[in-house]
């Protein structure tokens, strides 16, 4: 029996070991204030409170492949209200991240697509290139959709240009941090450390 198999029988232990702030899942008292306070609450497949209970009930596949965590907009209402001070927002992101790393997160969610576009955009220069990110986002769902969105957003784009909030010059390379190569090296190293951790514990 490999280490991972052992943990599959105990998803809570796996979450505690591998998910950011995962040890807090034990502290949930199932009061439901997080779920009731979430502005996106009605759209969740499983509200946070239920996710915590599912973890404790060993529902590994259902949790990690759930779209729920990907609905979190980081408004922090749940953290502010939780009577026990659970860092719920962070746990949601931690679970989402872990599910994706294991390759079981749902593929077609717009929030996942956006997160990936954002990340790819950011690591290139160490600064977000809003023009490029915006355009990639417009065309995320195909060429025709992209054109439609671009036309719809025309006015806002022009306004941002006129108030110097965005410049077309960003299309050519764009601004960045001082040492983008160095940043990429740091991120690569961090990724290696992260991967090693999961293999060892997971």
């Amino acid at each position: 029996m490999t280490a991972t198999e052992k943990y599959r029988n105990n998803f809570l232990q796996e979450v505690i070991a591998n998910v950011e702030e995962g040890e807090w899942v034990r502290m949930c008292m199932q009061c439901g204030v997080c779920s009731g306070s979430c502005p996106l609450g009605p759209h969740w497949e499983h509200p946070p409170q239920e996710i915590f209970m599912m973890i404790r009930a060993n529902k590994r596949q259902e949790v990690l492949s759930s779209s729920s965590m990907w609905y979190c907009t980081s408004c922090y209402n749940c953290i502010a209200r939780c009577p026990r001070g659970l860092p719920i927002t962070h746990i949601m992101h931690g679970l989402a991240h872990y599910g994706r790393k294991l390759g079981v997160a749902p593929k077609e969610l717009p929030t996942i697509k956006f997160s990936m576009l954002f990340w790819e955009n950011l690591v290139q220069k160490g600064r977000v290139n809003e023009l490029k990110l915006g355009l990639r986002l417009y065309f995320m769902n195909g060429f025709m959709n992209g054109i439609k969105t671009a036309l719809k957003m025309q006015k806002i784009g022009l306004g941002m240009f006129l108030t110097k909030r965005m410049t077309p010059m960003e299309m050519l390379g764009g601004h960045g941090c001082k040492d983008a190569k160095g940043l990429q090296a740091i991120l690569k190293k961090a990724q290696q450390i992260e991967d090693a951790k999961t293999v060892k514990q997971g």
Partner: protein
Amino acid sequence: MTTEIVATNQTILVVGGGISGMTAAIEAAECGKQVILLEKNPSIGGRVAQLYKYFPKLCFPTCGMEINTRRIKMNRNVRVVTMAEVTKVTGKKGDYSVEINISPRYVNENCTACGDCSNAVSGEFANEHNYGLNKRKGAYLPFAMAYPQRYVLDPAMIGTDDAAKAKEACKYNAIDLEMQAQTLQLKVGAIIWATGWQPYDANKIRPYAYDRNPNVITSVELERMMDPFGPTGGKILRPSDGKEAKDIAFIQCAGSRDHNYLKHCSRICCMASLKQTTYLRERYGNEGKATVYYIDIRAIDRFEDFYLKVRKDDNINFIKSKVANITLDKETGNPVLNGVNTEGYHRYSNPHELVVLAVGMQPSVDFANLSIDISVNEHGFIEADEESGMFAAGCAADALDVNRAVQSATASTLRAIQVINQLSAAEA
């Protein structure tokens, strides 16, 4: 007129005249010890005097209070001093010096509680006994069962025409408008702190809209509404429109078990709300409907029987959920409770005619910020200290129901008596 109080290091000082302080004072006095009972209000009785009925037996607290008051009245070893607060304590076990402040009552012991002064005055003030739900006159008896049975003048009245009218109306020369505040120094051997609790400030729980929605009230206010001599004559009336509320929601842990408010479990609120659901059947028979929103019901030991009995009533619903927030239905004035039910994870938005917040208990005195050497735990309740001759009784020690508060008071009395006895043994 000045108050004379005789005290020595053989005396036990009890601070706070609620059920715990009364019990401590009686127990010590009936063992032959000299006791001084200090109360900051114009009457002893504490919060129990503000309850309609007691769980678990559902009898009236006035009955037990009357017995206790009588025992105090009959016992020459107890000296009751009202409108008095401790400002300083120095010394050690067996030898304390205590400074107390007595506020003027403006009424002396000639008072027969006839009420002529009250009839003569017109100025009105928020009624503390009813948590401000109605007003009382500037010359008043705190409540019908008050002890001492003596009127009080509100300090805001002094210097007004009303004060003169009150004095004039009194046939017994009981009103003394020149009465001044006094500071006294006492020597005592042991001190029992029985200063009790206060309801947690519901306004701090912002999502529950206590300040914005008049039909959201607190558990202590509901107790006052039930009193036939209370602010609503015993009817449960909605503050917004004065209509009788028959569909009432109870929100548990309102301020308790929450690191944003009070971290501790206030322990009595589950039983208090279960008791209050029975008030509905008492008032409305089959027409009353109660819904209890809870995290878990903490009715321990023999209280579980009470809980199971309430559970059997079809008109009382239980929803396992801490309500997330309360909104308002403008048309009806009904508060709407929003949240997710843990049993099935279903989202709800339930309107009710009235919402009762089962507010938590917090210590009434902030001991940590007093210049008194007494240790408190992280929740502000007094902690036992082997070296000290100061002891806590009742809700000054923890969030307790009356039964447990009285047990705690008896235990502390025994410790205080030990201090005094050791002292007399050493001196003999």
